[in-house]
């Protein structure tokens, strides 16, 4: 616990790092699925703007639970209790009168397995705009095109926008899901192992995309793959058994981990 806070404090005061604005601030977050057992415990971390934050750790360490608590997706599961605070631009997202639906319009999410709707490519991307009440056809069309360009899918699908999204390859489907999330212009994009079900070439495209997208949206990416974390992220957090063991500059964390558990994990001694 004390370590976490000192690490956070250290990275903030590190003059070598680029100046940043804090997008989300998580303090003492504990999430329990049942009364007895907590999935994550006392997690304190910040999400910076224009930055990719990678979360690594062995299976079941709580990194996905943590990710899903950043846009209140855990609310859809019965019996979840959340304590601590999560702030988005200084506003508590678990505060009174907060509508999780509105939180999720600002904090988007891409899932491990691509899950396009059984609709056309165009309608998949337009979905978020339509449910947010956008009626103007021209606005929808231009935003769909922009989102598809941002997710590097436009050239591949521009001639078949009205074909089913389910007819795309696995990698294309995942980029379609990214486009769908980007279309509503979120401020933070959460990605839960977005490439773990893809082949190496499709994975490389997703990684390339993640590196580029940080200029327009803050990204938190959960990954099993430590090389992936090293390639795409500026900061990395290591989760172990429901705790955030340490978080810091990605190169520092991999080259000079400060905690014994982190070192054991990244050198492959467990996990």
């Amino acid at each position, binding site marked *: 616990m004390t370590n976490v806070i000192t690490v956070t404090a250290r990275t903030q005061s590190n003059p070598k790092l680029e100046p940043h604005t804090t997008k989300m601030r998580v303090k003492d977050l504990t999430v329990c699925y049942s009364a007895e057992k907590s999935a994550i415990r006392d997690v304190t971390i910040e999400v910076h703007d224009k930055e990719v934050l990678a979360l690594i750790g062995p299976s079941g360490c709580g990194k996905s639970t943590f990710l899903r608590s950043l*846009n209140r*997706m855990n609310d*859809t599961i019965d019996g979840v209790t959340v304590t601590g605070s999560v702030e988005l631009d200084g506003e508590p997202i678990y505060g009174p009168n907060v509508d999780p639906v509105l939180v999720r319009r600002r904090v988007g999410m891409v*899932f491990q397995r691509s899950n396009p709707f059984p609709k056309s490519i165009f309608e998949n991307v337009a*979905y978020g705009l339509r449910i947010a009440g956008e009626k103007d056809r021209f606005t929808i069309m231009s935003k769909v095109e922009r989102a598809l360009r941002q997710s590097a899918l436009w050239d591949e699908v521009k001639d078949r926008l009205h074909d089913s999204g*389910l007819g795309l390859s696995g990698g294309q489907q995942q980029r379609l899901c990214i486009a769908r999330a980007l279309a*509503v212009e979120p401020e933070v994009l959460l990605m839960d192992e977005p490439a773990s079900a893809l082949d190496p070439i499709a994975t490389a495209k997703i990684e390339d995309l993640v590196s580029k997208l940080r200029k327009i949206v803050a990204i938190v990416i959960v990954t099993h793959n430590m090389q992936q974390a090293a390639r795409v992220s500026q900061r990395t957090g290591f989760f172990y058994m429901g705790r955030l063991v340490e978080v810091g500059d990605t190169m520092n964390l991999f080259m000079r981990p400060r905690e014994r558990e982190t070192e054991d994990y990244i050198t492959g001694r467990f996990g």
Partner: protein
Amino acid sequence: MNIAATAGPKAEQEPREHGPITRVRVLDGVIRVALVGCGAFVLIATIAILLFLGRAGVRGIQAVGISQLISGVLWKPEADLFGGLPLIVGTFVSAIGAVIVGAIPAMFAAVWANEFASKALCPLYRRTMEVAAAIPSVVYGWLALVYLVPAMESLAHVIRPNQTTSGEGLAAASLLLGIMIAPTVLLLSLDSLSRVPSALRDASAALGGSPWQTAMRVCLPHSWRGIVIALFFGFARAAGETMAVQMVIGGARKLPGDLFSPTTTISTQIVMDMQNAMPNTTGSNVLFSMSLVLLVVSVVVVLFTRGLTRQGRQGRSRRPA
């Protein structure tokens, strides 16, 4: 454990006895013959029913004429008048009414139960509906006769105070049939909705979809085939229902003036007339002709739902793994 330990070494010491590989299995043959017999029995019974129904029905149509049977308004078998329009109108109006007041609300109730009810409440709701679907129709009919018909009578007095009424008629029949088909429609719709992958609900929620938007824009479109099938099954059941309708429709062999005047339906009229219809007379054959109408409705529903199911399966198989 002990047996295995002692048997092990023993088996190694003695030469193994090999079992024979030939034998005559009498029982297999008997079972096979019995099963083929059962299958043939059901098939032959069905074909026989279709043949008898078709033959007598066609004779009825030939004797009366198809136009008289479908568009004639007087149904008086005692005077050899077989105008089937009141029966057909009664059947279809009461069944469509049942879909409107019972099946469509049941569809939305399924959306509520699957998308909005808590994890503990939904199974409870489902069990209750399973019980409701299993209640015999005569019970529904009796309850309707005692409670629904007087209520309809009061309602009719309010709506059209100058006319006398017993409360029997299409309004009572539609409401009763609606209540009767609602549990089945709800259960079928619920099955269809519960097959919507949770990944799609997550996707919609993560894009800022409210539960209501997710239900209407993702879950209903994904399961529309199953729900349409449920609505059609509800319609077919309402059109074929006899006993309960008999108790509230009034049994008047004429076109209804409005929803509160007594009329009749195909199935109830068959019950009414069957005592007086001597076999192989026109009166008897015409009842078969009317039965054919009901059969055609059922066949159309079955073919339609089969088509939808197959279409849905093909749609799914196009999805890459």
